[in-house]
């Protein structure tokens, strides 16, 4: 844990008025972006992040400092997201519906990720493809490629073995491979 994170935790435990503001300003953006990928829309993402901070403030006494503060917050966000989908029971139907939409959507015939314009198109297509994945696969991709966490850290956060992490990563990537345009050259070496 960094010095700043330790200070925030200590301030929260002391019931410092500024501690919540510091917490939100330090981690709000990152959590919101992660939540956006997990649930697919901004409104729900904001609700999830709000609940994450509330839960974190309530249970800061239970934070044992074994991991980084962001990792702990992310763990809370993941649990809340799973609860959110269980409660809504929409994940399966959402998954199927979106997959049909993706199949019908005109995916650009040519996309060069090295060009800015094509990258913008690619990121929209990519987001749509992400939403067709199960929550487990989305979590893995988010942790690995957006949060740039190591396999060991992901394994510790999710409470699964490293083999399970690699397996989920493999299947998530395999699923994406079917949906993303081949022109993105994501799954081959760059050809000059």
């Amino acid at each position, binding site marked *: 844990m960094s010095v700043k994170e330790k200070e925030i935790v200590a301030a*929260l435990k002391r*019931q410092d008025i500024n501690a*919540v*503001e510091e917490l*939100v*300003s330090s981690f*709000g*953006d990152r*959590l*919101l*972006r992660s939540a*956006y*990928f997990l649930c697919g829309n*901004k409104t729900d*993402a*904001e609700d999830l*992040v*709000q609940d994450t*901070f*509330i839960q974190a*403030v*309530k*249970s*800061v*006494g*239970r934070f044992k400092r074994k991991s980084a503060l962001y990792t702990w917050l992310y763990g809370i966000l993941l649990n809340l997201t799973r609860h959110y989908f269980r409660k809504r029971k929409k994940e399966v139907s959402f998954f199927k519906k979106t997959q049909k939409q993706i199949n019908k959507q005109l995916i650009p015939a040519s996309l060069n*990720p090295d060009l800015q314009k094509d*990258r*913008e198109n*690619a*990121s*929209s297509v*990519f*987001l749509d493809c992400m939403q067709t994945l199960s929550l487990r696969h989305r979590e893995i*991709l*988010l942790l*690995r*490629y*957006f949060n*740039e966490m*190591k*396999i*060991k850290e992901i394994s510790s956060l999710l409470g699964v073995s*490293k083999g399970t992490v*690699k397996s989920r*990563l493999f299947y998530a*990537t395999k699923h994406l491979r079917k949906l993303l345009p081949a022109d*993105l*050259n*994501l*799954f*081959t*070496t*760059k050809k000059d």
Partner: protein
Amino acid sequence: MSCRRCKKLIEEYIDETLSQRLQKGIKEHLTNCEACRSLLEVKQRFSNIMHQLMSEKTSSLKAGPDMLDRVQGALENDTFSLSSYRGLRIKFRYRLAWGVMTVVFLLLLTTAYFFFFRPGEKAPMAKSYLKCVATIYEDKDQSNWIERCLFLRVTNGEHAYMKIIVSKN
């Protein structure tokens, strides 16, 4: 180092979380194996592009002051205060600890029962097992002596007698 092993450990190799020996072994293998080298390049390229795509899509998303107001508002309205979490709460994760303690306690009780109340064994005199029992014997032949036998029953079942002979004279 085989290709199979290399592919299995490639993610940890990228993370640099392997031991020095394995890192070195994979590095050497990659020098000689084009297929594995190609796989590493693909994974690194994929990782970079994925990160770029995800970052670009969400670069405009910011928590903003609105988020802070919502969190603070929700905390103020909530009856649960920052300082109200105190003391022991038996959560699901503590049940295992309680279960283990209960089993250990029952084992100790059972052990104590079999050590101190074993059937068939003739207790020498008194039946106190964890405290000293003073028994006074009057030796009729040696009326000048009063023997005090202190019975101590130790946990391994042995009886220890400590005779304190006190002379009347």
